[in-house]
Structure formats: C-alpha cells, structure tokens
C-alpha cells in the first residue's frame, strides 16, 4: 500500500474469489483466493512473507490472517485457517467460487533482503507453519539467494501437522532440510520423530554456522521460550532471531489499540520482531 492510499484508507476491502479449498487437518482449512479486480491482484501481489491480511464478511465482521503463499507466485493468495470463532465459522461455510472481501497486506513482514546469503533455521509449531510456509516457498523459489535452509516443524499429533506433503516435497527436491516431529503419536504410524520441537536441534546443531545464520520462528506462546534457549545455545545473535507474534487486532493500522505490546503495535511494528526487540517488551506472551 502506498502512502497516498494509507491516508485515505477507510477500511476499504476488495472482493476476492475462492479458487480452491482443502482440509489441512480436522480443524484447519486451506483457502486459495484471487482478487476479482486484476489490478488489485497485481498490486497486492507485492506483499512480503510474514505479512497478514484482514478478511471481511459483512454481517459477521473482520479478522486478521497470515498470508501463507509467496509473493514470488503472484496470481493468487493462500491461507491456512483454523475454525475457532464466528468469522472462521462463516468462512468455513463458503464454497469454491464464493466471494468475500480482503484488505491489506498489513504488518512489516520478514526482511528477506537481510537474510540473503545466509543459512536459515526455520522453526515452526502447530499453526505457525501457515505464515512460515510463505517464507519457505519464497526461499525455495529464490533458492540461490540462500545457503542451507533447515526447517524444524512440530505439531501435537500427526493429524495436526499442516502442509506435510508440501514440506516433504521440498525436502525431497533437496530445496531444504526438513525435520518433522509430533508430541504424541496415538495411532503409532508416524514415520518421523516424536518429541517436542526443540529435540530436533540435535539433528542440525553440529552444522550450524552461527556467524552466518538467521533463525525464524512461529508457534504457540509456550514454544518461544524453549526455542530461544536452543538458539542462544547455538550462539545465534539476538538480532538475527526473528519471531512473529499474534495479538487480537481490529483496525490493522495502529489506531485501535488492541494489538499494542507496551508502546509498539503488532500490526505496524510487527508482527515480525527480533529477539533483541522483544527482550525489551513486557507482557509478551
């Protein structure tokens, strides 16, 4: 969004059509959408991994969702949405070909240019895979811009693991080194690791070059504390650890106050923060 548009924004959302729907798990659904107006699609295709969009369903309301697709593939947007509230419930009633409104993109997103020519350690927990998928696809599409890409992904059970096929396909094409883990395996047919996501650090620890690595993480609040410990053990500098935070949001423009953490706004100054920034913030999780 350019500055002129930001001056007269008025919460204007644009109509988007659902191109595809797929259940990623028993409670999370994949949405592939495209703006009806091709000019808007072209303009909004300039988002960054880590940014989010706000969905509007007149009569129900609005909610923010992380963008899961990559700006390197511009003809559509993808999202992974868990059914938890009234807006997601309304979204779940929509079918392919139906339309709803989207405004955005909002937030700062990841600084992909800074990460160029570095190793990336990407750590995801549960629904954290949705925004991080954007970054992973971006890194795969611009593979020569990055060195080693390690992806550590944890979920509660195999059924909670999102985008598993996508990630394993990237792994098999040697685009990135993927390690998957689940906390529990009730059916006993999980072929990968079992245990919390921090356990996966054993797989990569001896190969991490802490002089030239960015770490990126997203997951449930409890995960951050333990993953940060592992990253600091590997001596990754605090300003090279990125994390994306979740807050209740309304306007997405730094006005409504809901997403404030101390004096910063998750919607403007975030949702991507470095650990160095975050150490100074209170009431983080």
């Amino acid at each position, binding site marked *: 969004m350019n500055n002129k548009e930001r*001056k007269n924004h*008025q919460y204007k959302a644009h109509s988007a059509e659902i191109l595809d729907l797929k259940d990623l798990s028993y409670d999370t659904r994949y949405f592939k959408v495209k703006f009806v107006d091709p000019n808007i699609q072209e303009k909004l295709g300039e988002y960054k991994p880590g940014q989010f969009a706000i969905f509007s369903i007149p009569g129900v*309301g609005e909610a923010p969702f992380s963008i899961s697709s990559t700006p390197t593939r511009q003809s559509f947007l993808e999202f992974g949405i868990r059914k938890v509230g009234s807006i997601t419930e309304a979204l779940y009633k929509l079918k392919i070909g139906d339309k709803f409104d989207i405004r955005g993109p909002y937030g700062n997103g990841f600084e992909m240019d800074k990460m160029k020519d570095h190793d990336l350690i990407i750590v995801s927990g549960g629904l954290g895979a949705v925004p991080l998928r954007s970054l992973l696809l971006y890194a795969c599409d611009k593979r020569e811009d990055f060195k080693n890409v390690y992806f550590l992904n944890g979920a509660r059970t195999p059924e909670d693991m999102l985008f598993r096929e996508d990630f394993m396909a990237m792994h098999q094409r040697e685009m990135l080194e993927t390690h998957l883990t689940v906390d529990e395996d009730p059916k006993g047919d999980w072929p990968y690791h079992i245990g919390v996501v921090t356990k996966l650090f054993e797989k990569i620890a001896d190969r991490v070059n802490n002089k030239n690595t960015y770490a990126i993480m997203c997951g449930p609040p409890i995960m951050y504390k333990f993953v940060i410990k592992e990253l600091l053990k590997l001596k990754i500098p605090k300003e090279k650890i990125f994390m994306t935070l979740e*807050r209740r949001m309304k306007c997405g423009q730094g006005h*409504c106050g809901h997403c404030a953490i101390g*004096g910063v706004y998750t919607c403007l100054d975030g949702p991507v923060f470095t650990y160095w920034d975050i150490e100074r913030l209170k009431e983080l999780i």
Partner: protein
Amino acid sequence: MENLVLSKEKLPEMLTEIASKYALFGPIEENGVTSFKHISNSQEINLDYLRSRISPKDLIFQQTETLFTFSKGKEVKVNTPQIDEAKRVIFGIRSCDARGYSILDPVFEGKREGDYKDPFYTKKRNRSTLIGLSCNKPEVNCFCTSFDDSPASMKNVDILFTDIGEKYFIDIVTEKGKELIENLGNLFSKASEEDGEVRERVEQDAINAITRHMNTEGVVEKLEKMFNHELWQKTAMRCIGCGICTYLCPTCHCFDMQDEATLKEGARIRVWDSCMYPEYTMHASGHNPRPARMNRVRNRVYHKFSYFPKNDKIFACTGCGRCIDYCPVNIDIIDVIAKVKEAKI
C-alpha cells in the same frame, strides 16, 4: 492581532451567526448532565458548566462511527459513506479537553512517513475551529496545571473566551480563529488595557484555586523499573473493571469494530472500546496476554505515563480529573502516580 471583548448580551447573536455559517457544537444540559452536542438554537447552551461529564472528544472521535453500510442479496454490496465535511465550530471547550485533541492527533493523523491516517478523525479535526472557554472556578479534582497548562490556556484552541464579568475577553490565537472572527461582523469591540488586566487576574485566581497537583517528574524513568511492583496488584484489588475511566478520558482512543446487521442489510461500526475489559486482548484461541485485572490496570497507567511519553513526547493525561470524580471505587490517578514516585525499587 489585538484582543477583543464581547458583551455577554451579544453572545446569543454571535452563536446564531456562527450556527448560520457553520455546524455549531457546544455544551448542552440534558437531564442534569452536560455534554457537547450540535446546537441549532443558542438558548440551549449551558455556559455555567465546569466540565462536561463526557469529554468532547466524541465530536471528532465519535463513540460510534459507521465505516460503511452493506446490503446482502446474492452478492454483497458495500457502500462507503461520505464523511461529514461541514465546517464546524466547537464553542465552549475547556483547555484540558482541547489538549485532549492534541494528544489524539498523532494517533489518528499518523506521525511517521507511511503511517495510516484515519480519514474520519482527520477530516472532522481539520474542519473544526475551537473556541475555548476559560475555567474561572476549577473543579476540586482539576489538575491541568500539572501539565504546564492553565485553566485559561491558549495552547490548543483557535480562540479563547474568558468570562471577565459583564463581557468575554477574547484571545485570538490562530489564523483559523482570526478568519472566524472576521466572518462574524461587528459584534466585538476592542479590549481595553483594564479588560486585559482583569483577564490575567481571572486566570491567576483560577490557577490559585487548583489545589491538586500531580508530580510527573521522573515518572517515565521510574516506571521503567516498576513493571513487576506490587503497586499494580494492590491498585487492581480495588478496581472493578467497569471501564468508566477510559470512557470519560479525553485521551483514550481504543475502539472495536463490529457488524450490526439484519438478514438483508447492515453496517460496520466503529465503537469505543476499553483496555479495562478482558475480552479486549483475548485471542480467538482463548489465550489472553493480559489475563488479570492487574495487567489491565497496569497497562492503563503505563500507556498514559510511559508508552505515550516515550512515543509522542507527551503524557496522555490532561488533568481533567474525570477518572477521579467518576471512579466508583475511588481510584485516584494522582494518588497512583504519587505512589509510583514513593515506591521503593
């Protein structure tokens, strides 16, 4: 520009003149409560009021604002409303409330390159001319002087009226104010030297009548070290989380966005919200980063006395005293800040 005076008899004439050219807003008493409303008839105005119960922030940042309307058929149709572009005059605003607007400006007008500007706020703000009215007899919990302000402050108004007995003394502060006065014809006469002296005396008497004082020196730095202090838990023990402090505050600006709809049509509405409520920060997952009342009480104090001054170089408090007067459990912000100053860390 030289100062003017207006005889009190001519005030209705002036207001009628303003109302014929601008949308005029002023203090009106209804059922014993004074608040700022649109005025069509100058008789309605109540200038004996000291402080309106609800701050006039709602003239610019409305308690409810329709962002757009929609109709739902086969396809949803969204209609964006025209924002009210009438030129406005807000008459009789107190210096504390005028200061409130100046504190809200950086929030809604954007302070950095690339910030979002809120068109609903900015359009109304830019088209408003503020005629302030000095407080001759401040309320018992007034403390505007703690913020380097005065009951007869000219800092945040375009024109200032001061009651000097039989007439109003008029300070014309800005170009916008000058333009308005010039538009109103020959109602005014030149102020004499004596009028000026009376005005100064009235201001000094009002300043002297303010007995409460908040000492904010070093508070920003002290709060840096007090996040985990027991003071917040103690203060929260008394708080019932009603949110009246935030609703009456001239600088609170949080809002929620909600849809009001029937099966056929509806509107998305922006409505004041309050950080004193647990739902304010509650995620859809049920996780809440500010789960306890203590977190919310602390956040209110920190927002006004730490985050705001750090971001915008100004305390988000005007000293109007409303939150002190109307708190049902007598939480007193002056007292809280005094305890911050005293606290051992």
